[in-house]
């Protein structure tokens, strides 16, 4: 375990499988994908992309996904309705570790009922669901956690000062059930699990972001 992570904590993603919504800071910023790849548990993965999301944000590239490329099933959906159907169908399959769905803009099919259905299906069958919104607005949603994720200037490269180093992300939790919202600059780091093993997770130095979030909440 690298020593540099002392005091760092994992980002407060939900412990139990449920629906989380991630808003990309900009459709051409794939920062959320790096953060999500660290957060996902190993195992078969269903990745649903709407056609428009592929055109705007690029197609999933297995070579850049590392360990998740092995069990990946990629679905190209015609529109948001088909994408939501494929996600819900995937959530009923307990052999999957997670379902990721990317939607472009604010489609009419994505209303409160649709997100609520996804959240209920994810919780009932124990499959984590991540709804990615590219270029969308944070309207009404049944997601248990709502994040806004973008890239942040990367950490210093250990050997080459002019090269991009390990990635860092600007992650804002702006709505969550049962916990305070917060704002973090996160990087990748090792975090000890309950059983003594260490997992590579998105981590942040808790004090500035989390405390600030609580402060803002108290003021509001």
């Amino acid at each position: 375990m690298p020593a540099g992570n002392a005091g760092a904590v994992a980002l407060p993603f939900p412990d139990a499988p449920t629906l989380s919504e991630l808003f990309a800071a900009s459709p051409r910023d794939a920062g959320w994908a790096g953060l999500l790849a660290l957060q996902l548990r190993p195992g078969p993965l269903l990745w649903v992309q709407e056609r428009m999301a592929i055109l705007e944000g690029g197609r999933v590239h297995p070579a850049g996904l590392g360990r998740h490329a092995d069990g990946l099933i990629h679905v190209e959906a015609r529109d948001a309705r088909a994408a939501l159907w494929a996600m819900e169908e995937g959530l009923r399959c307990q052999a999957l570790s997670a379902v990721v769905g990317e939607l472009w803009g604010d489609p009419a099919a994505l209303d409160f009922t649709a997100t609520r259905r996804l959240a209920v299906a994810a919780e009932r069958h124990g499959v984590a669901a991540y709804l990615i919104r590219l270029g969308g607005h944070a309207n009404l949603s049944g997601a248990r956690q709502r994040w806004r994720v973008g890239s942040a200037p990367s950490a210093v490269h250990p050997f080459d000062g002019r090269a991009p180093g390990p990635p860092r992300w600007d992650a804002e939790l702006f709505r969550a059930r049962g916990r305070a919202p917060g704002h973090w600059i996160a990087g990748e780091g090792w975090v000890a699990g309950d059983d003594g093993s260490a997992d590579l997770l998105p981590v942040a130095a808790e004090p500035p972001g989390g405390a600030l979030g609580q402060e803002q909440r108290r003021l509001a």
Partner: protein
Amino acid sequence: MFTLEAQHGQLIHAATEAAVERGARIGGRLTDARALDPALAAVAADVAGDAAWLRGLAGWAGRWSPLVEVDGADGLRLDVTGVAHLFGGERRLLADMAERVATLGFSNRAAIAPTAGAAWALARYGGEAVTVGERQVAAALAPLPVAALRLDARATHTLVRLGLKQVGDLAGVPRKALARRFREADHPLDALDRALGRKAEPLTAVTQDPPPRALVAMKEPVVHPEAGTQALTLLVPRLVAELERRKLGVRELLLLGYRVDGSVAEARAATSIPTREPKHLARLLSDKAASLDPEFGFDAFALQAGWWERLDAAQDALVGEPSGEAELARLVDRLSVKLGPDKVRRPAPRESHLPERASGWVAAVASLSSRPSTTALGLRPGRARPNRLLDRPEAIAVIYATPEGLPRRFVWRRQVHDIARAQGPERIAPEWWRERSTARLRDYYKVEDTAGCRFWIFRQGLVGDGRGGAPDWFVHGLFG
């Protein structure tokens, strides 16, 4: 009357009964027939169209038997072994065929016999419609003309000249005497032996392994849109029972709806692993079954395996909970049926250095069992690869560049990005054994703009490489 263009004028290809009565002779000249009765109407025959239609009819005849062959220009041959009891016996089956083909508006003759040769002869030259056993076949064939043996014109002519006008006459002649007179290819003895079943008929399609199939015939044609779904619920348990008995699992499933007008509606679904789980099969086809168009009405449905594999009796798990692999396969099947097999895919990396070629995809239905290898060139560790790849690289406009040639500021999709940090180049040469000689090499850079967004950009070509003008820059991927 239909006519064909021949070398010396028009020949009569086919004629109605009324025309035959007034002197038209099939195979004769149109001018001869017109001389007898100038009122005869002639239409040019469409031989290719007839053949295509007959092929279509052969598909429709699948309602009676899975093994149907087009026989010559005007016949169909069905292997009805073990089929007749489904229709209440051979005679009922024949009556059903005659009635349904007549409904389509065609005169027809049909016969059932133990051999293909005998059935051909009896259908065309009349006689007993249903025959069983060699003795009965011989008795039925005996009064028919020798042409019924399906020999070529010369052999038939020789037999007639010898005074052997009926099939029965051949039995009276010593075999040795007959054997000497004819050449091997069109031997009347062979034809007789084939018709009587003493010799195997090589044309008869005998498959040891007919496709698993379940059939339901309606009393009345149905036009109700629910008919497909109802037939499916009826057929699935029957097909599953047959699959269980034969220890098979389907990979491709077809629901065929036979319409009264002789056309066939089809719904098709593929599965990624062999299965005979009734609930799953019914669910795969239920949407498509409901959307089958009855047009003038369905009068039969068949559920058939298009592709099947061996599947031994297996128990998924002790508590009836399906295993992960099987559950994933079912998910892939459902998604593929609804969205199309080419939309549900798995990564299948190829041995290539070009990123867009290395990250190949295959339909998940086809390759669920084969795990992709992570050791392919593109996936080796130590290479920085973006986790998003644009389907086609997008050109960027370089506003100004460093002395080494790397852009400092570029425009992509009408937005300006200032490069803060860059790493590279990684040079990827074109695959000269596949591409044209003008293909240019690529120098890939991983760059980060001032906001922290990371891109994978490349320069195509070098200055002065003799393969075009100034090199262009492209964005190819996004790093997370």
